[in-house]
């Protein structure tokens, strides 16, 4: 039972990493850049929840997702688009700059306070209070409501995204652009438009990830996006950066490793060390990641 609980927790934590990792990997696949401001979208999403929660929890969730998608498009337009064709280093430095900019703006606007928005207790006030405290018990098995919702959301998002990429014209165009921008343009595909859609999807997923994080009543602060952001980046690389199933797999693996490491008292303090060691080992053994393909360089 202990094992099963840890496993389910790992799936749920990993699912959130996977959701964030999808943003990194899709943007990398299509715009060939590492968007290091991606983690801070999580933070912005969480503050939007704090801001809109007094109005209505459902409104807060929808607003956070939509506004983060718009923010993603906006950042791409003003910060990254002018650098299309510039050296990768210039784009990388810009992304780090955007990351600090978002953190500083949040600090100025929201002040130094930390918040605990806990939207779940607003959504299900009865259930989150006594006597269950948000825990569903079936026989000897129990699961937190937040974990259950996270698992459901992750399953829906991954299925929807996979179907979108596989079976829609826009989804196929995304794969085409990630493979060969020039040939895609020759087909009449507007590459800028596809990049914009990619940023919108990635940022909306980051917002959703942040909402799921706040479901666990975690705190909201200006630097809260950094660690999950960097872990999700590690997950994307482990799975194979640029690969959508890779990001899903990498996220789940990292979440499972994290939860199982935390379950063993002797190694629990080294959880983060173990997670990033996994990244280093992967880079040494198979730098392209589990599902990554070696791309032939075009002359």
């Amino acid at each position, binding site marked *: 039972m202990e094992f099963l609980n840890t496993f389910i927790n790992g799936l749920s934590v990993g699912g959130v990493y996977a959701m964030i990792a999808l943003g990194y990997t899709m943007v990398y696949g299509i715009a060939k850049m590492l968007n290091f401001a991606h983690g801070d979208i999580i933070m912005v999403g969480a503050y939007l929840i704090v801001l809109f929660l007094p109005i209505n929890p459902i409104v807060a969730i929808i607003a956070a997702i939509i506004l983060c998608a718009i923010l993603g498009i906006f950042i791409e337009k003003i910060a990254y688009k002018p650098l299309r064709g510039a050296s990768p280093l210039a784009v990388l430095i810009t992304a780090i700059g955007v990351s600090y900019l978002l953190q500083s703006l949040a600090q100025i606007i929201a002040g130094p306070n930390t918040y605990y928005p806990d939207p779940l207790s607003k959504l299900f006030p009865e259930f989150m209070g006594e006597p269950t405290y948000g825990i569903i018990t079936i026989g000897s098995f129990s699961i937190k409501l937040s974990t259950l919702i996270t698992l459901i959301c992750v399953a829906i998002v991954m299925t929807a995204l996979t179907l979108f990429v596989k079976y829609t014209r826009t989804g196929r165009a995304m*794969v085409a652009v990630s493979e060969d921008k020039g040939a895609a343009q020759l087909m009449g595909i*507007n590459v800028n438009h596809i990049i914009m859609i990619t940023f919108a999807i990635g940022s909306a997923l980051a917002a959703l990830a942040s909402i799921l994080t706040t479901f666990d009543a975690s705190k909201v602060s200006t630097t809260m996006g950094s660690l999950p952001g960097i872990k999700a980046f590690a997950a994307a690389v482990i799975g194979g950066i640029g690969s959508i199933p890779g990001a899903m797999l990498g996220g789940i693996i990292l979440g499972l490793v994290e939860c199982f490491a935390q379950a063993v008292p002797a190694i629990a303090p080294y959880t983060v060390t173990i997670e990033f060691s996994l990244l280093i080992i992967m880079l040494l053994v198979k730098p392209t990641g589990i599902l990554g393909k070696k791309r032939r360089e075009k002359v």
Partner: protein
Amino acid sequence: MAMLEVHDLEVYYGVIRALKGISFEVNKGEIVTLIGANGAGKTTTMQSVVGLIPKRSGSVIFDGHDITKTPCHKIVHLGMTQVPEGRRIFQELSVYDNLLMGAYSMKNQSSFKSDLEAIYTRFPRLAERKNQIAGTLSGGEQQMLAMGRAIMSHPKLLMLDEPSMGLSPLLVDQVFEIIKDINKDGTTILLVEQNAGKSLAISDRAYVLENGSIVLSGTGNELASSEMVRKAYLGG
């Protein structure tokens, strides 16, 4: 009437002047070929005409529109489609999805099914392999797919960059037959080839490109019998 007019086109790669102000035209219904050695500027010409490579100066008029500054993805909508050098099919997508991408520019998707059927009739091998990942096709099949993908957009002008490259002699003949067929169906063709003999034989007119300049032009027959072309491109 000229369908494509290129005037004084100049292209630079950094400080290197790759195209030194070339002018040519393609009339409606014609097959026109640009021949030349490796590095003469053939692919540069093709790619700069559609806006894949920036032009330094000059102008391009297509079907009455000035497309000199039109972004590449909009040109397809006007009716000019290119089969690029090296085919550049989408390796990770299936044959079907490649054809779907070919039809991406079609505003009206209602003709998609019948267009697809027409492609499968013209290229039966593609029908057999429609669900196969394109990267696993043979070179000849990939060339068929690249041509099929381009035709899906109903081009008025089809540009083909080295369609015979890397193919066996039998397949080369087949590719040239298909090009003639497409032309008979009413599509104007601009062809770039190193295989001067075969391409001149099917061309109405041709231009010889050397070091970024057009040095000779004439009908296919004239060029095929010209002393200079025979020496340089037809092996004496």
